[in-house]
């Protein structure tokens, strides 16, 4: 079965549009610019991958969409447009109606995301009844359907079990069931398989892909694993130090990565097919969010950097066929 990524988007309206989102945290040590001006769109039936290493802000972006970031230390600016409404300005009551209902999230650690003292059937039923009018009996029936949807074997028996009785893969399936029970339009999956074994990871990713097609959702998949991206995503945004540095269709990105960070990331992955003696390294470390100055955040570690990179921040430039990149070395060479 050949993989045909779903890439036609220019003639469709995005389900969700993030416009110049900034999430800054005010701390004793200064302002931490976790997300510093990020924009992207999510379309129905497509998976957008957000790739980056820890601290780049990819998780905070997702949490910001659902307004799960506590706003006393954090400040948002920009817009998150969903059905023509800016989610950042919505009152909390309306946000609650959206969370779990129209936009759902699956987290990395299924054990800590599930209530250990409630059976999984009860948890799913509770979510249903929060958003839809149903009796407990009807809700339990729907829970059963959901367990079948996520391919949990023997759902009638499992529905009364507690999270600790399930394996990691099963718990993640339950999380997915919880997220999908109200037929959301958008699913945000934050490193959903990082904590799982590779064989279980393969099952879960296949499940998410299948459900996306069946339910016609838009999916945001956040990960640090380029393999996962290559397998599951249609478009990919690469983040570094709070900014988006490159975005392209998945084929374009792997075929022709433009940003030096993207290239370095790809080559430093000890993939199974490479035989080189030494793994190419990226020297240095990700700058802490407090250290960012006015130049390109990747400047210190980049092998193509020039003086301009240290002093000016590169902007995202379209290099053709919806492939954008923020890098002077690329745009100026090109021009």
């Amino acid at each position: 079965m050949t993989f045909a990524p779903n890439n036609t988007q220019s003639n469709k309206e995005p389900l969700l549009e993030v416009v110049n989102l900034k999430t800054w945290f005010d701390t004793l040590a200064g302002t931490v610019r976790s997300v510093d001006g990020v924009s992207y769109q999510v379309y129905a039936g497509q998976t957008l991958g957000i790739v980056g290493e820890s601290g780049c802000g990819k998780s905070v972006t997702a949490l910001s969409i659902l307004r799960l970031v506590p706003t006393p230390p954090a400040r948002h600016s920009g817009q998150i447009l969903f059905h023509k409404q800016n989610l950042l300005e919505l009152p909390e009551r309306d946000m609650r109606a959206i969370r779990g209902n129209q936009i759902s999230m699956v987290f990395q650690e299924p054990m800590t995301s599930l209530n250990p003292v409630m059976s999984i059937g009860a948890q799913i039923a509770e979510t249903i009844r929060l958003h839809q009018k149903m009796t407990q009996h009807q809700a339990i029936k729907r829970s059963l359907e959901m367990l079948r949807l996520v391919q949990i074997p023997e759902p009638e028996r499992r529905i009364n079990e507690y999270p600790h009785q399930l394996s990691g893969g099963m718990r993640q399936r339950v999380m997915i069931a919880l997220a999908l029970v109200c037929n959301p339009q958008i699913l945000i999956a934050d490193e959903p398989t990082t904590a799982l074994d590779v064989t279980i990871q393969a099952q879960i990713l296949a499940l998410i892909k299948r459900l996306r097609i069946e339910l016609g959702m838009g999916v945001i998949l956040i990960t640090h694993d380029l393999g996962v991206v290559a397998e599951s995503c249609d478009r990919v945004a690469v983040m570094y130090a709070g900014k988006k540095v490159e975005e392209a269709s998945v084929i374009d990105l792997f075929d022709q990565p433009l940003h030096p960070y993207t290239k370095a990331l790809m080559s430093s992955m000890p993939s199974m097919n490479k035989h080189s003696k030494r793994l190419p390294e990226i020297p240095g470390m990700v700058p802490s969010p407090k250290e960012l100055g006015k130049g390109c955040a990747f400047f210190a570690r980049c092998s193509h950097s020039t003086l301009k990179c240290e002093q000016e921040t590169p902007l995202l430039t379209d290099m053709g066929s919806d492939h954008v990149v923020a890098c002077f070395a690329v745009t100026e060479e090109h021009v």
Partner: protein
Amino acid sequence: MTDSTTPLLQVIGLTKHYVSPRRWFIPKQAPVLAVDDVSFQIDAAETLSLVGESGCGKTTTAKCVMRLIEPTSGSVLLQGTDLLSLDAKSMRQKRRDLQIIFQDPYASLNPRLKSSDIVAEPLINFTPLSRAEREEQVQWLFAKVGLRPEWASRYPHEFSGGQRQRLGIARALALKPKLMVCDEPVSALDVSVQAQVVNLLMDLQDEFGIALLFVAHDLGVVRHISHRVAVMYLGHIIEITTRDNLFDNPLHPYTDILLSSVPVPNPSQQSNRRLLEGDPPSQSAPPSGCRFHTRCPLVQAICKEQKPELSLRQSDHWVACHFR
């Protein structure tokens, strides 16, 4: 295996069972067979990787080799001496040759000690060096693992994850051990930092001739760093061979599925992925016969009854399967 020289490390029939404590009001429960009759060997300056998924027993095996966990039975021969037969005092002396690097760079360093004290601890324990000589050694170790010597007075929380892992490596390197057990040393690190640490370990192996027992679940890293690989499933080694043999020609069905489950970072190459059915079985009630038979695509009647032994199928390629 066909060498006439004694291998550096020989593990024979290593077994670790966990038995729940007996109480008169609790019915007897089956023991958890974390590690069951595991045997392998490592030559000097060689890397053997133990791979497998959670619950396969690879970490328990590594800790048993280090005698951080007391095995139920078996032997661990380091240059001919069975570590498991030693008393506490002699074992402590043997620790000079046998060091470990832990998975969690945050938890494996005492947050209250300066990094130089942490790295110097093995030197304090075993060498009669003066304080000045120790400091010199610490500086040398710092430089060897790629840390700036002036950071020696910093505390662990002032270092990043990758740097902390380097501290752990410096500590393990201090006594120039013959074998280092690496318990998933890069799993908790970012990808770009993983490369740095993996390269460091390989450099140290080349320079000091240290053998590595490398426990990992990331097959990409394993492919890079190993000379030989052993695949574990539910407490057993089900395949053990050279690195190239394993990746180019996996014989055991589980290995085959494991390798194909790894996502390929190339969108045009999303060919047939063989998915594993079902869930890992419970460790306290393992399937009869071949432990893998409940999920194996090749399962036959014999698999349920008889456990296959690890047998030599091809040159230096051992597999535990009735059909391969």
